[in-house]
């Protein structure tokens, strides 16, 4: 409960938009349903600023919302944006590190500059100057991206302020809570501040396992299981991109990936009655997609066997790389380069690398998907990484990058 009474959810397009993009209707919006017309307006703003494709990627935007919320010690939004980043494929550990200190989160230099910019604008607006804008330009951000970064900081401040004003409780238990004395404490928390624990410190950094987080697709899955076939379309739209990514990396061509994507969704639909919710629906779906892709790959006559072992690989081209190789190429160029070189890897190494480094499956899950032992999987991933490194030397070595 927040400070104002909760209203039952009306059937409203804006709420559907929220659900589609966050996986749920966040309580901070539920708390404003006394005036659903105002919620509609806010969702329009979100739709335009955050959900629509822009100059910054959605992950970059969510990172900005996360660091500003962290700067404001707003546990509610730090949890919501951390969770959203997880849906977007960012590991929870990484977003948690960004929450604590983005400079220690192993981000590329331009992303660090972007988040430095956001944190400063949020926390020290009076000392913010044109030099800060210039520093983003030096990190290769264009003016449209800078504008979006400023708007994201503003959006985060607006949302944080609304949540604090309404006293909305988290939608799920945050992975990391800030010292609550600075964020509208409840009566119990006020007591805790007045009477600190025996160590005299506030206990922060509370963690929970992923399993205890609710599945954002739970309701849609339940509707499909109850015979609402049309609801499955929402799942196709929501997870189609992720499934496609898994498949194109395994199969190598967009055409084959699109065919396999259809099969994967059909299999998921047919086997939904067996889905017991022990994992998230999205995890289950991606496993189906990976198996669909692997079956197709194995059925190819000319493919380099996924199962045969081959001789040792020794790195040959040992040249020092530049400190920040990403600076020499645009994001699009890097993406194209990675896709081109990954696709040149023999399938057995490509698939192992895809599952671990792009799909970010655990070593155990990736080994199980490929029917390998953990050491066998690790050997393939390492070989894939070393081969990929070798192919990238001409682009990123000190000699090569300077020619680009």
């Amino acid at each position: 409960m927040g400070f104002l009474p909760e209203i039952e959810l009306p059937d409203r397009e804006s709420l559907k938009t929220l659900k589609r993009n966050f996986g749920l209707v966040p309580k901070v919006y539920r708390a404003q349903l006394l005036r659903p017309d105002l919620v509609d307006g806010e969702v329009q703003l979100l739709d335009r600023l955050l959900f629509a494709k822009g100059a910054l990627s959605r992950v970059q935007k969510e990172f900005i919302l996360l660091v500003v919320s962290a700067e404001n010690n707003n546990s509610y939004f730090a949890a919501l944006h951390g969770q959203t980043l997880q849906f977007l494929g960012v590991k929870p550990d990484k977003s948690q590190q960004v929450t604590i200190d983005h400079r220690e989160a192993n981000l590329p230099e331009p992303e660090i500059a972007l988040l430095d910019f956001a944190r400063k604008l949020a926390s020290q607006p009076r000392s913010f100057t044109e030099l800060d804008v210039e520093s983003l330009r030096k990190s290769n951000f264009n003016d449209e991206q800078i504008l979006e970064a400023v708007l994201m900081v503003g959006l985060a401040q607006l949302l944080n302020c609304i949540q604090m004003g309404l006293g909305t409780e988290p939608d799920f238990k945050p992975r990391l809570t800030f010292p609550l004395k600075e964020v509208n404490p409840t009566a119990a928390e006020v007591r805790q501040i007045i009477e600190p624990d025996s160590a005299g410190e506030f206990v922060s950094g509370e963690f929970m396992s992923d399993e205890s987080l609710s599945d954002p697709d739970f309701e849609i899955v339940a509707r499909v299981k109850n015979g609402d076939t049309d609801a499955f379309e929402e799942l196709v739209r929501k997870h189609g991109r992720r499934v496609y990514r898994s498949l194109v990396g395994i199969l190598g061509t967009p055409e084959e990936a699109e065919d396999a994507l259809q099969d994967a969704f059909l299999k998921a639909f047919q086997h939904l009655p067996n889905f017991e919710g022990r994992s998230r629906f999205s995890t289950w779906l991606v496993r189906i997609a990976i198996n669909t892709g692997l079956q197709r790959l194995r059925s190819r006559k000319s493919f380099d066997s996924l199962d045969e072992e081959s001789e040792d690989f020794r790195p040959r081209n040992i040249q020092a790389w530049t400190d920040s190789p990403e600076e020499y190429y645009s994001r699009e160029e890097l993406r194209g380069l990675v896709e081109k070189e990954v696709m040149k890897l023999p399938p057995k190494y490509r698939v192992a690398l895809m599952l671990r480094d792009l799909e970010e499956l655990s070593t155990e899950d990736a080994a199980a998907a490929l029917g390998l032992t953990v050491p066998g999987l690790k050997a393939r991933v390492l070989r894939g990484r070393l081969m990929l490194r070798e192919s990238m030397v001409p682009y990123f070595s000190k000699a090569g990058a300077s020619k680009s």
Partner: protein
Amino acid sequence: MISCRDFITELGNLLDDDIALEIREQLESHLAHCNSCQVLYDSTRKTLRIVTESGSFEYAGPIAEPLVSKIMDRIRNGCEIAPKEAES
């Protein structure tokens, strides 16, 4: 002292931070005096960073409407897939 070959064998675990403290210390001690392995470690770490941050293989924009329609048409028409192929 460990060899360069041993270092390469353990490189994957080092990159994944999935390594016992004792072995990590041995690898770091090797790195301190082996320039080739320093370069290899640094460039492989950067490769991994570029791969994970590149957004590669993502579908540009939302899934195309014709594709969504095809999937939903096949589902509504009761298209069958052999159960043995699917995961449960």
